[in-house]
């Protein structure tokens, strides 16, 4: 089944849909299929759309799909909504805004429930993106759950992150708090027909300009320096005069755009910027650099997940139980117990690896 499935997902969306279900269920059989697909991955441009609940991410995604289709691209969407922490159920409603694309062969939309995963994505997100990438979608959009101030998993999964903001969510101290604001490659102030949109734009720009002045290590400054060098080099190759920037691109800040997604206003410019960001990444070393970091992160998390799974099963349970008892009976102190448990676990873990 799996080899055939791997070959089939290119032209059979049902197999693709099934594979994603296997990924969601963490079905071990998915691994053979994903292995067989590995060579086909790495071509898609992965775009993250993130922002607070109600900021218009789904409507914006719907309009972005339309614009990318007009430009001849095949588009896949992974739309993530939260699972109920009490029942494990979920209402996945992002798709409502995108139903006009339901019969378009060049669009594939899949809703995922977060299933208890914090961070704004689902545990299945990264593998799902790879499956869609292998199925030859040119752009894979990930719409995160509505985020607050710390759900930044999306930067580990996407090449380009669009941060959607809306007017009226708070004063400028919200904008200078660390967290979600720092992860955007493109900023989009949606519902721009509302009062205060221009102010959000000003505050967002001011925040980034201040970060540069303070010498903060921002996500964008390295890319912009590399882009500047690339542009200068290309111009010299063509024998053109170059307008030198004494700061070497270091003062450039990401675009801050106004959109009214409901009416499609500003979406064409937003898509221009999304594609331009991809071009900047591809022209420099930064696409590979990002993906290398992201793969390292994913490997690290997979190891941590496996260790945690192993800790939770019976192997480690008795060690933890004994250590807890020793602490409670004052046979040992907490830190000595911890050190002993860790030693035991590392030894057992090494045996596990060598087996």
């Amino acid at each position, binding site marked *: 089944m799996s080899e055939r499935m791997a070959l089939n997902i290119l032209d059979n969306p049902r197999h693709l849909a099934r594979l994603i*279900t296997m990924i969601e269920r963490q079905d071990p059989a998915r691994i053979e299929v994903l292995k067989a697909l590995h060579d086909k991955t790495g071509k898609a441009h992965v775009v993250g759309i993130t922002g607070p609940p109600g900021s218009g991410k789904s409507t914006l995604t719907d309009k972005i799909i339309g614009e990318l289709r007009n430009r001849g691209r095949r588009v896949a969407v992974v739309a993530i909504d939260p699972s109920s922490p009490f029942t494990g*159920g*979920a*209402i996945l409603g992002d*798709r*409502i805004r995108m139903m006009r694309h339901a019969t378009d062969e060049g669009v594939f939309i899949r809703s995922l429930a977060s299933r208890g995963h914090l961070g704004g994505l689902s545990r299945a997100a990264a593998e799902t993106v790879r499956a869609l990438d292998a199925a030859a979608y040119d752009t894979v959009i990930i719409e995160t759950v509505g985020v607050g101030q710390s759900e930044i998993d999306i930067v580990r999964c996407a090449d380009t992150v669009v941060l959607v903001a809306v007017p009226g969510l708070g004063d400028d101290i919200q904008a200078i708090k660390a967290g979600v604001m720092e992860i955007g490659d493109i900023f989009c102030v949606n519902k721009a027909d509302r009062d205060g949109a221009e102010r959000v734009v000003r505050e967002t720009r001011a925040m980034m300009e201040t970060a540069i002045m303070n010498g903060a290590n921002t996500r964008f400054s390295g890319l912009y320096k590399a882009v500047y060098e690339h542009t200068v080099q290309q111009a010299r190759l063509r024998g053109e005069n170059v307008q030198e920037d004494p700061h070497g691109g270091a003062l450039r800040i990401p675009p801050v755009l106004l959109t009214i997604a409901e009416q499609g206003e500003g979406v064409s410019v937003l898509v221009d910027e999304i594609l331009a960001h991809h071009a900047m990444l591809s022209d420099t070393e930064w696409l590979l650099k990002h993906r290398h970091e992201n793969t390292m992160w994913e490997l690290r998390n997979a190891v941590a997940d496996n260790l945690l799974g192993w800790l939770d099963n019976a192997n480690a349970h008795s060690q933890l139980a004994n250590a807890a008892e020793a602490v409670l009976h004052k046979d040992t102190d907490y830190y000595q117990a911890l050190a002993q448990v860790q030693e035991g676990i590392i030894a057992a873990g090494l045996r596990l690896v060598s087996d």
Partner: protein
Amino acid sequence: MEQKIRVLVAKPGLDGHDRGAKVVARAFRDAGMEVIYTGLRQTPEQIVNAALQEDVDVVAMSILSGAHNHLFPRVMELLREKNMDDVLVIGGGVIPDEDIPGLKAAGIAEIFTPGTATGTTIEFIKNNLKRKA
């Protein structure tokens, strides 16, 4: 392996009454299911394509316009065309008793008319899934 029942709740046809569909969607969620809600006025083609991409175990349709004798069988036909025979399909809404045998013959597993307790529908789904969830 973590397995969840995935249900597409859809409103085919032109009526704008989705209160029942939303109540049912919430009940399914509270029963631990993952519910993909498609919104109002969907064509059978849109519903079936969404069901395919979302790889759902169940399609639950609600209709109050009276067009069920046309739209429900059309959804079944499209599902068969795409070899999606393993999807459980149920219907609800204002549907006269005399229409129910014909809809069942077309492949709708059960019809739930107004007044049905949501628990009844949930039990039916759990007992009649065609795919092992």
